[in-house]
């Protein structure tokens, strides 16, 4: 059961997820990177079965790249990317749904504004300041409710994320030893830290 969460701060957004790849009672690997980079200034943390996770995030990121190539380098804003992603989830919903729950974060380089979106496998979408998917939400939302405020800087946002990770490692039944944390700001998508070097699949 994957933990994915995101926190928006002044000038960017952090997306974090665990690095476990497991099914039933077996853990296959503990260095999977579940925060997929969609474009130069956006990324989405994805939770769900490995096949849908990989296929859906690659499908979205390649389609966004195609848009850029077909439109003279014109990039889609995070708002547009989130709505496109939600549209793809909605279209697939009645045919063969993607069982993925997503936290999508991006930085709009034209408006100079960060944004974070919560999308679930039923194609619901909400723009949020912070959020979590999966069992992580039960443990982490209260921490974020308490500590988040307007005008955080990156260190403070990372501190909130690290508090959430510690809480999961103390109280969550499933051991998730490794987490990967990425920040998206005006300089693009940067990996801030990872528990284990992600495998390139």
């Amino acid at each position, binding site marked *: 059961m994957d933990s994915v969460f995101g926190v928006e701060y002044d000038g960017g957004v952090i997306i974090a997820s665990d690095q476990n*790849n497991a*099914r*039933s*009672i*077996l853990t*296959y*690997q503990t260095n*999977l990177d579940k925060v997929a980079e969609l474009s130069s200034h956006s990324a989405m943390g994805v939770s769900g*079965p*490995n*096949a*849908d996770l*990989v*296929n859906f995030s690659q499908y979205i990121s390649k389609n966004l790249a195609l848009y850029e190539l077909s439109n003279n380098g014109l990039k889609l804003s995070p708002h547009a990317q989130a709505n496109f992603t939600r549209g793809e989830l909605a279209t697939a919903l009645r*045919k*063969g749904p993607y*069982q993925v729950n997503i936290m999508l974060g991006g930085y709009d380089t034209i408006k100079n504004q960060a944004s974070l979106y919560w999308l679930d496998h039923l194609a619901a979408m909400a723009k949020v300041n912070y959020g979590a998917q999966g069992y992580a939400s039960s443990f982490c939302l209260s921490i974020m409710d308490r500590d988040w405020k307007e005008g955080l800087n990156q260190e403070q946002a990372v501190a909130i994320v690290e508090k959430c990770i510690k809480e999961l490692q103390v109280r969550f039944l499933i051991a998730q030893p490794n987490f990967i944390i990425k920040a998206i700001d005006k300089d693009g998508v940067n990996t801030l830290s990872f528990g284990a070097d992600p*495998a*390139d*699949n």
Partner: protein
Amino acid sequence: FVKGANASILPDSFGKFEGQLSSLSALQVRGGEMDWKADILNSEEEESTGAPPLEFAHGTTTLSFIYDGGILAAVDSRASIGNFVGSKTTQKVLPINNHMLGTMAGGAADCSIWIRKLQAESRHCELAEGRPITVARVSRLLADYLYANRNSDLSVGTMIMGYDEQGPSIYYVDNKGTRIGGDLFSVGSGSTFALGVLDTERRRNMKEDEAINLGIKAIRHATFRDAFSGGYIAVYVITKE
């Protein structure tokens, strides 16, 4: 019927026929020993309120790992039909080309037909491009086919392994379309027993005979404890040559 509108993103009609056939056979065999398989497939997609079900869906034990001189694969040879031993001498490792192997776990027919298709596709790619195909590409071909057919109740849990210009690699691919690269995998109903031995005794810098002994030991322990694994133990070594 064919489940879902996305039943064929396959390049040719052979694959489409395959998808329809396996959903037909799934319908006829439903009931009896196939029921627990359906339960596993269904419950994986919901949040389980109790303890998660044990993975019995692939009645075999196969393992492979990378050691300091190559790749080792070890498999058992039992084919079970429910609680009955169908064969003690099944061949569960199939060559894809002369530098790659695929192991078979799950439905014997599903695995052998898809690996045979993979043999043809990889040969085609090699001829078209004029150079050996990479393990990543072969495993991706298989994973894409299986993802397209993920609603057809296939049962495939295979490891694609081999040497290419990036060195040795092993990819685990299954019927849901999962594809994971790594250096140690075990697949099948006896996989947890084999992993217990493998995880405790494996070291990075093993020599070939130590690796072979470890592979045999792991499968032996798995066949001892797992009712669905047995027969003889087949060991394969892939080196750079």
